[in-house]
């Protein structure tokens, strides 16, 4: 695309400023020149005027002396051909008009009058009056000035035209090429070069630009190559990662399948052990002696402990594998607390422990979306722990209230309490506290970890506080309302 030479372009601006400078110079010199010409012409006019009058009087004097009026008329008529002379009048020595000649083409206004007395042998023989007109000289001045102005204007136009052509050829066209190249160059097309080889600044600029473009192209190509390599690497890594994830998925599924079938394999014989122990304990098929009854009871206890251990491990693995899903339904908090207490009532009663319930009034009718069976599991775990670690005659208290957008439930006891270390570790898997009441079956060490996971899956928190050993403990968990 060619850059048009307009006022906005560099060429336009250069030409305009040069033309303005030249125009001012031309006007100034035109003024001076025409002034000088005018002065010269006027000076010549004055000189001519005197010379013409003098020469006329000289040439008329001898003729007039002879009274040859015919000759006088001839002379003055021929003198009228002087362009400046409007009329000539000749008087005799008495001042009487002898002859007069007038040039019709010259207006008779504003004439310079010149009077000469003609002498012959020292006596006045007459006089001559010549009317000079400035009309011709003025006309000449006008013509000369016009010629100067036209000449200079023509020169100005020629200079402008030459400048236009030169600037177009040497500045605007290369600039156009430059602009076009730069405009067409982009990230997809960096191979374009500016084809200007002149030895001026534009040529240098084009050369530098081409070098820069070359560097840019090189850098861009390298970058593209790196980017491709990087992309390839990312793809490779992603593929590896996906394979790893797939492998992990397969491993996880295998683990989950294994756990599921193992728990079935473990429970089947255990169900038989527990079932038969119960049959024997119920003595459907004959009486047992004291020792046998005691051992039977031990087998049953151990069997049931083993079964709960298996169930807890399975629960925990399901949670860890992300397999445990909450079955959400609307749960009435008051009913949940009360039905949980029923599960533990008998046990508490047997140990002479008292059960206190404090349910805040605003919980009346409160329902939350939760997995009822799992929440019962939480309550049962906390309450059976409380019962297990509270000596006979102690107190177990369940308090529930609403705090902001959370439901807060405390289960506290007057039991053996926890050390600060216990408080920290009691939610870890297989952690057993130092103090266990005599004659109590140890737990699976998984109840509290499972409890914590269930609470957390519901979006709640759980923690324990204890004043120290022997001063009871207080488990608190929250659930979002």
């Amino acid at each position, binding site marked *: 695309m060619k850059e048009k030479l307009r006022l906005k372009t560099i060429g336009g601006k250069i030409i305009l400023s040069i033309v303005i400078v030249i125009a001012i110079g031309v006007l100034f010199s035109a003024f001076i020149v025409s002034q000088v010409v005018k002065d010269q012409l006027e000076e010549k006019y004055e000189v001519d005027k005197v010379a013409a009058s003098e020469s006329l009087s000289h040439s008329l004097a001898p003729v007039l002396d002879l009274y040859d009026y015919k000759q006088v008329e001839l002379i003055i008529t021929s003198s009228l051909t002087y362009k400046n002379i409007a009329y000539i009048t000749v008087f005799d020595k008495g001042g009487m008009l002898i002859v007069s000649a007038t040039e019709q083409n010259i207006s008779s206004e504003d004439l310079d009058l010149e009077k000469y007395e003609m002498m012959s042998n020292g006596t006045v023989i007459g006089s001559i009056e010549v009317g000079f007109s400035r009309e011709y000289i003025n006309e000449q001045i006008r013509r000369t000035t016009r010629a100067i102005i036209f000449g200079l204007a023509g020169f100005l136009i020629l200079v402008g035209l030459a400048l236009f052509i030169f600037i177009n050829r040497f500045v605007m066209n290369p600039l156009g090429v430059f602009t076009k190249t730069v405009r067409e160059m982009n990230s997809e097309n960096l191979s374009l070069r500016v084809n200007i080889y002149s030895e001026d600044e534009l040529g240098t600029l084009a050369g530098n630009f081409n070098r820069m473009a070359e560097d840019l192209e090189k850098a861009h190509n390298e970058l593209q190559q790196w980017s491709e390599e990087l992309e390839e690497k990312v793809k490779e890594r992603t593929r590896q990662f996906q394979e790893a994830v797939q492998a992990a998925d397969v491993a996880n599924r295998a683990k989950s399948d294994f756990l599921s079938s193992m728990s*079935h394999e473990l*429970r089947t014989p255990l*169900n038989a052990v527990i*079932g038969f122990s*119960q049959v024997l304990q119920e003595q459907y098929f004959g009486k047992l002696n004291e020792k046998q009854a005691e051992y039977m009871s031990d087998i049953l206890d151990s069997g049931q402990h083993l*079964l709960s251990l*298996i169930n807890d491990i399975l629960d925990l693995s399901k949670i860890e594998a992300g397999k445990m899903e909450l079955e959400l339904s609307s749960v009435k908090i008051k009913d949940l607390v009360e039905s949980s207490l029923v599960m533990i009532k008998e046990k508490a009663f047997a140990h002479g422990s008292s059960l206190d319930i404090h349910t805040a009034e605003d919980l009346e009718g409160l329902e939350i979306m939760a997995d009822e069976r799992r929440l019962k599991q939480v309550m049962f775990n906390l309450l059976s722990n409380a019962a297990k670690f509270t000596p006979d005659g102690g107190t177990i208290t369940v308090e529930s209230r609403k705090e902001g957008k959370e439901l807060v439930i405390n289960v506290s006891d007057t039991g053996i309490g926890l050390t600060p270390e216990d408080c920290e570790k009691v939610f870890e898997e297989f952690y057993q506290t130092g103090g266990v009441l005599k004659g109590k079956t140890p737990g699976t060490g998984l109840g509290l970890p499972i409890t914590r996971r269930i609470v957390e899956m519901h979006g709640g928190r759980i923690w324990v506080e204890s004043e120290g050993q022997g001063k009871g403990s207080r488990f608190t968990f929250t659930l979002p309302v």
Partner: protein
Amino acid sequence: MAKVILIVEDDPKNLTLARDLLMVSGYTTIEATDGEQGVELAKVRKPDLILMDIMMPKMDGYTACNAIKTDKATRQIPVVMLTSIGYELNKALAKQMGADGYITKPLTRQKLVDVISQFLPTS
């Protein structure tokens, strides 16, 4: 005449346990050790109630239950599924297959009597 209960259970010891507990409770039992056999026996002997284990070789409990419940000859027989504590009984699937109830193992006489008496009023 004593009510006849069909036990479908692959583990021989648990089968014996169930049989003994039912016997003590005054029921007559017939036994099958896999789903297929259970379905066959239900058709031939027309028991008053069926106790059906879930994980069994050849044909699992859900499939056997479905077979019994879709056969005109046996569909009126109540089917009670036997499952383990902690084993997530697919209650929805059991119901869909036509099961009438379920008992969680380990079996005790009390559990059996409580559930069975819902379907077989003691004479």
